[in-house]
């Protein structure tokens, strides 16, 4: 494929390295260094997309990230990416690009019929039209509109490509590498500051690459190359090309999106993108300025582009634009026309409405305005009005130069507003908008090259003096310092639709209509018309739109103001933003030391917090988990079971005031506990509700070990630290989490002592260990701890050994337990065992219950204050109106109960105002041959024996249950004490 529109010998492209790529299935050739947009233009392809609403043919408007029109889809499968700006996608061998929002093809799009009905489709059309019947909105109108309007499509597949996140720190972040940015970076770098220079483009140099003004007697790009060579050689400088700084945040933090692999043929061994958090002591925003179009009828055809983009395509990429009409209203436009002419581009007409415009140029100059274009899929002729009437001339390209908007977005990201500068007809930044950030160069409204160079140096010097670094002598090279005269022209008075926001198909009429219908504030106009809400966020159109709104309302531009600038400056893929936050990066996995053994035994693992715990240990012949669970429960009740409970939080508490401290955080007394004894403890929040429960063992006089529930381990640690540091910092007590350091394994059942003796070096050590007792013990030759506690209601021990011995201990206990007719049991059986005993977990102490509710009011020691005590005595937190913990047994034992179901009086309707309570835990008890439940019931303790209705609206279950004490089995506790 010939590159018919390529100017021989011109441009910063590598003609030795041709690159083949495809667009809508057709093969093209570009060169290394091309963007998709430049390569397509070089091949004479102007039509690159269809517009959002009217499906109008559209071509590329810009040469940068602000591109509103030329959005395409790239890649396949999970990596498929819509709305890629052709101006940002670099070509690489094999790149396959598809146009979007068209059917059946880009050149013939059936939905371009919308354009014929455009007079009906103006702003607000959808709101006004698709109102009735109301039910149709979701089912008919919205899907229809979504199909017709829109941008690219989503693959619906998981993107499994690599993305990364990274942090960087520096003294100075320079954003943009044009003349201002380069001078700023150079000045700071020579002073020894740690500098990061971030540039959105693949190459550094900014506009010096696109129009190469003379600097210090050199071509601008050559000068830039020299500066970059110096910067690149300095160890204190990091150059970050292909990195868009996307947002300014508090404390000098900036977001940056680096396109690491998007320009490489897949599969490249690099991430696709990297999202940077850059922390900078100071920052200089030197992001340049964006040229804006002028609204005139049919200003949206392929072939219409910004004059600066035209210049970039010609100079940097050697693209021949064909015959050009240039429509401008400022001196920069005139300069562009001169530069283009000197490069051999044919300017057929330079059209400028300014009264004083000189006509003595090398190209025809007309004082006037462009009033229209023709050409179905691209500009064929341009019509303009001038003194002598209306002329229509044949041209391929219409270049618009409506003035420059400083790229000050980042300066506004933390909530500050820019000032209107009437002489520039543009918003300019004010000092101090973002603390620590200075704006320099064109971004600050200084448009000449000389002013940019000087601005960069001045900004860097100010930073250096703030950072107390020695300011080096940096000579500012000579450069062009032309004045910038502009006569604001937002839209041309002529009949026909004139586009403002190309990406969202907003015309000048839509904005006027918004004002007329009362949406006169700029924020309302934006939402009514969708102006500035497309992927480009109105970068080239917002200012013109609010100027037209200001005209319509008569308020003037400063009073109208801008809409809010928010990050990100360019679209950021969610995959990049969330890099590292998937799967284990989202939630790390914690595994006990017995995890491999459980998996080897075929146990399905379930997540408990971040931990993985075995659900049950299946045996051959068992068809369902229930069979395994029933067997394991029975095994514990009749022989012995082994269960790893290392996930429980363990906190070591030491000091002469440890007992006093624990008295303060638990409702009950711990200071009276004798060494070698264990006590159940309940912890409240200061609002009187239960925080957590667990055991507290006194290992020695000044040494306690407390346990927490698995999920609340971190919370309790934080709480204890708070209570200590906030209320009793001078007490002699220290605490530390030792959850990870100890493996703790339960052995429980009538044969638990036999099993204990199998692993205890000297069985005498635990021979007389009473219920709720503790003794140090030598377990399989290792110093460990033996606790006699029970969460199953059977005789039980918990053995603790340093975590590195946990796997061995578990294996040995399982083997020995099997010899005794027992074995391991999982979470399901553990749950049934504790429900049978009425033991609570976080299903019950879920944050909204009090000690009174769970029947543990009497554990509140009257002899001392404790956290939560005062509030727990308040009216409303105790009494018959409270929902209280009860047991529930179905009248028909085999009728399954469901957790989460609500409780009602037997014949009451299932309405929330009739609610009596809810079910928290359920399980089938093979011991009692019945389903059992725990739940909370209004005044429940006084209602034992009554029948209530369990009503599960979600699963459609209604079960009559008898209310009973929550302890179903062995209420005297003879089994665990015996």
């Amino acid at each position, binding site marked *: 494929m010939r590159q018919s529109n390529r100017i021989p010998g011109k441009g910063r492209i590598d003609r030795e390295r041709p690159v083949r790529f495809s667009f809508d299935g057709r093969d093209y050739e570009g060169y290394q260094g091309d963007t998709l947009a430049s390569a397509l233009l070089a091949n004479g392809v102007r039509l690159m997309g269809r517009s959002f609403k009217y499906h109008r043919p559209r071509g590329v408007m810009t040469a940068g990230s602000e591109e509103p029109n030329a959005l395409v889809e790239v890649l396949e499968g999970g990596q498929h990416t819509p709305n890629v700006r052709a101006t940002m996608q670099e070509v690489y061998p094999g790149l396959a690009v598809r146009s979007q929002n068209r059917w059946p093809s880009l050149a013939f799009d059936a939905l371009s019929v919308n354009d014929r009905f455009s007079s009906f489709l103006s702003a607000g059309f959808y709101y006004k039209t698709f109102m009735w019947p109301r039910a149709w909105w979701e089912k008919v109108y919205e899907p229809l509109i979504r199909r017709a309007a829109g941008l690219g499509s989503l693959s619906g597949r998981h993107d499994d490509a690599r993305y990364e996140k990274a942090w960087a720190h520096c003294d100075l972040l320079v954003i943009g590498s044009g003349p201002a940015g380069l001078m700023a970076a150079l000045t700071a770098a020579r002073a020894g500051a740690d500098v990061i220079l971030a540039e959105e483009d693949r190459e550094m140099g900014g506009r010096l690459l696109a129009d190469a003004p003379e600097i210090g007697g050199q071509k601008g790009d050559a000068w830039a190359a020299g500066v970059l060579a110096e910067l690149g050689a300095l160890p204190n400088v990091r150059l970050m090309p292909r990195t868009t700084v996307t947002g300014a945040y508090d404390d000098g933090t900036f977001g940056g999106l680096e396109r690491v692999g998007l320009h490489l043929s897949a599969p490249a061994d690099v991430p696709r993108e990297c999202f940077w958090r850059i922390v900078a002591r100071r920052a200089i925003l030197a992001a340049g300025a964006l040229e804006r179009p002028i609204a005139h009828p049919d200003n949206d055809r392929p072939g219409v582009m910004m004059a600066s983009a035209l210049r970039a395509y010609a100079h940097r990429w050697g693209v021949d634009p064909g015959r050009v009409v240039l429509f401008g209203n400022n001196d920069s436009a005139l300069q562009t026309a001169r530069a283009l002419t000197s490069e051999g581009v044919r300017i057929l007409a330079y059209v400028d409405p300014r009264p004083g415009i000189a006509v003595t140029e090398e190209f025809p100059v007309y004082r006037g305005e462009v009033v229209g274009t023709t050409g179905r899929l691209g500009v064929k002729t341009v019509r303009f009005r001038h003194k002598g009437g209306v002329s229509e001339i044949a041209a391929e390209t219409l270049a618009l130069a409506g003035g420059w908007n400083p790229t000050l977005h980042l300066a506004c990201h933390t909530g500050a507003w820019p000032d209107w500068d009437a002489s520039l007809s543009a918003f300019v930044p004010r000092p101090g908008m973002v603390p620590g950030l200075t704006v320099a160069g064109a971004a600050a409204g200084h448009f000449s090259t000389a002013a940019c160079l000087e601005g960069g140096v001045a900004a860097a010097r100010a930073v250096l003096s703030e950072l107390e670094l020695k300011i080096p002598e940096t000579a500012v090279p000579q450069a062009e310092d032309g004045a910038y005269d502009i006569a604001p022209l937002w839209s041309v008075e002529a009949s026909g639709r004139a586009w403002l926001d190309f990406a969202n198909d907003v015309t000048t009429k839509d904005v006027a209509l918004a004002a007329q219908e009362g949406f006169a504030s700029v924020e309302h106009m934006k939402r009514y018309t969708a102006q500035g809400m497309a992927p480009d966020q109105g970068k080239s159109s917002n200012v013109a739109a609010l100027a037209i709104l200001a005209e319509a309302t008569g308020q003037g531009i400063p009073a109208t103001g801008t809409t809010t600038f928010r990050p990100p400056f360019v679209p950021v893929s969610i995959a990049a933003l969330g890099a590292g936050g998937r799967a284990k990066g989202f939630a790390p996995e914690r595994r006990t030391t017995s995890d491999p053994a459980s998996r080897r035994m075929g146990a399905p693992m379930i997540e408990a917090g971040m931990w993985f715990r075995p659900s049950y240990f299946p045996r051959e012949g068992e068809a369902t988990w229930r069979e395994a669970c029933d067997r394991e429960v029975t095994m514990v009740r009749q022989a012995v079971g082994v269960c790893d409970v290392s996930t429980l939080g363990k906190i070591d508490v030491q000091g002469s005031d440890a007992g006093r401290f624990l008295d303060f955080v638990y409702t009950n007394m711990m200071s009276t506990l004798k060494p070698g004894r264990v006590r159940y403890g309940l912890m409240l929040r200061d609002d009187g509700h239960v925080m957590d429960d667990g055991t507290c063992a006194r290992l020695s006089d000044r040494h306690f070990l407390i346990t927490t529930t698995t999920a609340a381990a971190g919370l309790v640690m934080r709480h204890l630290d*708070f209570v200590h540091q906030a209320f009793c910092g001078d007490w002699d007590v220290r605490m530390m989490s030792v959850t990870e350091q100890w493996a703790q394994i339960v052995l429980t059942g009538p044969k638990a002592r036999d099993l204990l003796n199998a692993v205890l070096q000297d069985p005498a050590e635990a021979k007389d260990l009473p219920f709720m007792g503790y003794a140090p013990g030598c377990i399989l030759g290792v110093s460990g701890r033996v606790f006699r506690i029970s969460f199953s209601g059977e005789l039980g021990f918990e053995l603790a050994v340093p975590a590195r011995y946990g796997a061995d201990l578990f294996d040995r206990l399982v083997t020995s337990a099997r010899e005794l007719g027992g074995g391991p049991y999982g979470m399901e059986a553990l749950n049934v065992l504790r429900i049978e005993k009425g033991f609570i977990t976080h299903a019950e102490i879920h944050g909204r219950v009090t000690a009174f509710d769970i029947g543990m009011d009497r554990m509140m020691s009257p002899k001392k204050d404790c956290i939560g005590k005062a509030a727990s005595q308040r009216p409303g937190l105790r009494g018959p109106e409270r929902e209280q913990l009860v047991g529930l047994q179905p009248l028909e034992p085999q009728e399954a109960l469901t957790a989460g179901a609500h409780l009602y009086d037997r014949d009451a309707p299932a309405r929330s105002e009739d609610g009596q309570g809810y079910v928290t835990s359920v399980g089938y008890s093979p011991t009692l041959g019945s389903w059992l439940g725990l739940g909370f019931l209004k005044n429940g303790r006084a209602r034992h024996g009554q029948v209530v209705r369990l009503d599960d609206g979600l699963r459609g279950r209604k079960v009559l249950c008898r209310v009973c004490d929550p302890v179903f089995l062995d209420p005297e506790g003879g089994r665990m004490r015996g």
Partner: protein
Amino acid sequence: MRITCPCCGTRDRREFTYYGSEDYLDRPAAEAPAQAWDDYLHNRENPAGETRDLWYHDPCGCWLKVTRNTVTHAIIACEPVAGAGA
């Protein structure tokens, strides 16, 4: 946002857990009237401007009283709570 922990230096806010107003440091006596407990537990100012609140530095376990501005997001001071209420 970064907070300067007296033990660990300036650290990213991802290392900290927010708790609430510094009011939590002024715990009433056990026998204080209900109104005092209401104020302690529930009644809060919501200032636009300078505010003091409590943050936990998870890696080192230090509780901090952080003075910051809710409008500018500036962090003005950080001090350990230990000693403050003892």
